C-alpha cells in the first residue's frame, strides 16, 4: 500500500485529473449557465459529439485547430438554438427534449463520420504549452502548468463565469430568470431572451467540450466517443451547487478519482476481481459528497417553462 501513496503517484494522479477534467468542465460550466436561467439541457452529450466530429473533420481537412474549434462552436450554437426554441417557445418537457437532442446528436455525428470520413486517423491536436517559469516550479509545475491551451482556458473560465454570474447585470438577470422569473419579467427582463442566451452559451461550450476531446485530448474521432460524459457533466452541475467553483471542484474530484482508480490497477493493489468496484468509485463518491456536502440551492424555476400570466 505504501507504493500507492508515493509522491510521483500523487503527482501523476493530479496531472491526469486536471487533464481529464477539461471536457467535463467546459460542458458543465455551459450547462450551469443554462440551468441558472431555468433550463435543463440533457442533450449535452449529443452536442459534444457533434462538436467533436465537426472539429475533427475540419482539422483533418484543413489542419487548422482554430477553424476546427470555431466549427465546433458554431455547431454547438445551432444545437443550442434548437434546444432553446423547443424549451422556451414550445415549452416542452425539458428532460425529454434533451434526450431527443442527445439521440439526434449521437446518430447524426456517427452518420456524418461514416459518410464524410469513413475511417479515423490521428491528427495533431493542441500541443502542451508549458507556462514559462511556472512550469519549472517543483511539483506544482508538473501538475498544473504543462497542459495544452484548452486545459488552461477551461480553468480560466471558472473565475470569469463567477464574475459574470455574480457581479454583472447580465448575471443578475440570469439568476432572476432562474429563481423568480415572474419578478424578473415584471421588472422588464426578457426571461425568454435570457434563457435563449444561456442555453445557446451552454451549447457553444458543449461543442467546445467535444472538440477538446477530439482535437485536444485524444486526437482521434470515434462514434460515441463521449460514452455518456455529457450526462455526467449535467450531474456535476447539481453536484457543484450551480456555482462555477463548485462545478470545477466536482469535475476535478470526479476525474481524479477516475485517474486514481487507474493507478490502483497499475500498482496492482487489489485483486482483479474487485476492478469493477474500483471503477464504481467516482460515481459513489459523487453521491456521498453530495449527501454530506452543503445544501445546494437549486434555481427555483429550473425546468419550468415560463409564460407571462400563467404562474
Amino acid at each position, binding site marked *: 500500500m505504501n507504493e500507492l501513496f508515493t509522491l*510521483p503517484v500523487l*503527482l*501523476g494522479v493530479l*496531472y*491526469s485529473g486536471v*487533464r*481529464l477534467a477539461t*471536457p467535463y468542465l467546459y460542458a458543465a460550466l455551459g450547462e450551469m449557465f443554462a440551468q441558472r436561467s431555468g433550463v435543463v439541457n440533457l442533450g449535452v452529450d449529443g452536442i459534444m459529439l457533434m462538436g467533436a466530429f465537426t472539429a475533427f473533420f475540419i482539422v483533418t481537412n484543413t489542419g487548422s485547430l482554430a477553424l476546427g474549434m470555431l466549427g465546433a462552436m458554431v455547431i454547438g450554437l445551432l444545437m443550442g438554438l434548437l434546444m432553446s426554441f423547443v424549451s422556451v417557445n414550445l415549452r416542452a418537457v425539458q428532460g425529454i427534449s434533451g434526450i431527443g437532442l442527445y439521440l439526434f446528436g449521437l446518430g447524426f455525428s*456517427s452518420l456524418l463520420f*461514416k459518410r464524410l470520413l*469513413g*475511417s*479515423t*486517423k*490521428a491528427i495533431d*491536436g493542441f*500541443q*502542451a504549452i508549458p507556462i514559462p517559469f511556472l512550469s519549472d516550479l517543483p511539483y506544482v509545475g508538473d501538475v498544473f502548468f504543462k497542459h495544452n491551451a484548452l486545459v488552461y482556458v477551461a480553468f480560466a473560465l471558472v473565475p470569469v463565469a463567477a464574475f459574470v454570474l455574480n457581479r454583472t447585470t447580465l448575471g443578475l438577470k440570469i439568476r432572476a430568470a432562474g429563481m423568480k422569473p415572474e419578478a424578473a419579467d415584471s421588472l422588464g427582463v426578457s426571461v425568454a431572451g435570457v434563457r435563449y442566451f444561456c442555453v445557446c452559451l451552454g451549447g457553444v461550450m458543449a461543442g467546445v467540450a467535444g472538440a477538446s*476531446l477530439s482535437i485536444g*485530448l*485524444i*486526437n*482521434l*474521432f*470515434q*462514434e*460515441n*466517443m*463521449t*460514452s455518456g*460524459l455529457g450526462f455526467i457533466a449535467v450531474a456535476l452541475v447539481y453536484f457543484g451547487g450551480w456555482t462555477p467553483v463548485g462545478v470545477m471542484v466536482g469535475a476535478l474530484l470526479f476525474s481524479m478519482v*477516475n*485517474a486514481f482508480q*487507474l*493507478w490502483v*490497477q*497499475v500498482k*496492482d493493489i487489489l485483486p*482483479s476481481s474487485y*476492478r*469493477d468496484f474500483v*471503477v464504481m468509485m467516482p460515481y459513489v463518491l459523487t453521491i456521498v459528497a453530495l449527501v454530506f456536502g452543503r445544501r445546494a440551492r437549486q434555481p427555483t424555476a429550473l425546468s419550468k417553462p415560463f409564460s407571462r400570466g400563467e404562474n
Partner: protein
Amino acid sequence: MNRNVKSLWSFAAAGLILAACGAAPAAAPAASAKQVKVAVVMPSASNDGAFSQSMFDALKSVQASMGGEAGFKLAVSEGMVQVPNAAAAIRDYAQQGYDLVIAHGTQYGNSLQEIAKDFPNVAFAWGTATDTFADKGIKNVFAYNPRAQEGGYALGVLAAKISKSGIIGVAGPVEAGDAKTYVDGFKKGVLDTKPTAKVNVVYTGSFSDVSLMAAAAETHSKAGADVLTGSSQAVVGAIGVAKDKKAIWLGTQANQSSLAPDTVGASQVYDFSGIVKEILALSAKGTKGGTAFELSLKSGGLKIVYNDKISIPADAKAAVDAAIKGIIDGTIKPLP
C-alpha cells in the same frame, strides 16, 4: 374508451397499407444463380479500427475477389450491442434466404443456438467462439476463434526489444475473451524476452469508453512506459495519447497503422478472409457447419504487420520472427 387508442389503430392501418404496397418493391431483385449472399451482424461499428472492422475488411476483400457485388452480396448490421436485436437481425437474414449469416460476437451464441435449429439450410458462423453446438445436434454452425495470445506474445517480444525505459503499459477493456488472452500472451512475451521489464496492466471496465482509455494511457505514460498496447474499439483514446507522448503503440485485431502513422509500430491483424472462403466452399458442397476454425500464426489467420513509417531495429524483428517460428512449431507456449 381512450382516444389515444384511436390513433394507434389509424397508425396500424396506415402501416398495413404501406406494408401491402411495400411487399412488391421490398422483394429482393432476382439474383444470378452464382451470387453468394452473406450477412454479418456485429456489436460495434464496421469502421471501429478493431474487432468489427477486422471482419468487415475480410468480407470486403473476399467480395472483391469474387467479382464484387455481382458475385457476392454483403449485408451488414453493425452496432448490435443488444443481443435480442442482434438475434432478430440474424433470424431475419436467415429468413430472407442468405447463404451464410455471420454472428460476429461471442454474446450472440445463445440466440444462435435457437435460430440455427429453425434454418437447417442456412450456414451460420459464430465467433469468437469454439463451440459449434455439435453436441446439441446442430449441424449448421461454424465457429471461429483467434488465438490472440500468439500475436500477443510476438508483440510482447517486440515491445521488450524496443522499449528504452523497460516499462510497458497495457490498456485492456474488460478482462474476458480475446482481450484477456491477448494481454496474457503479451505479458508473457515481454517477460520471457526481458525478465527485468515491467508490464503494467490496466482494465478500464468498458469496451467503449474512449476517454478512460486515454486516461489509462496517460497513467502508463506517467509511470514511465514508452511502449503501449491494448485492445477493443476504445483504443483510439490510448493511441491519441501515445502519439502525444511520442510513445510506440502496438495494436491488435486490425491493422492500426493508418490511425497514427507516426505512432503505431506494428499490429496483430485478424485476417478472417481465409476462413470465410473456406466456409463458403464447404457450404457450397453441402456442409453447413461443424468445424471450429482457429486463427493462428500457423494458419495465416493471424499476421504481424509492421508499419513502414516506423523504423524497427533489425534485431528486434529477428527476435519477433524467432518467436513466431517457435509458436508455430510448438516450442514456445504463448500462455502461462
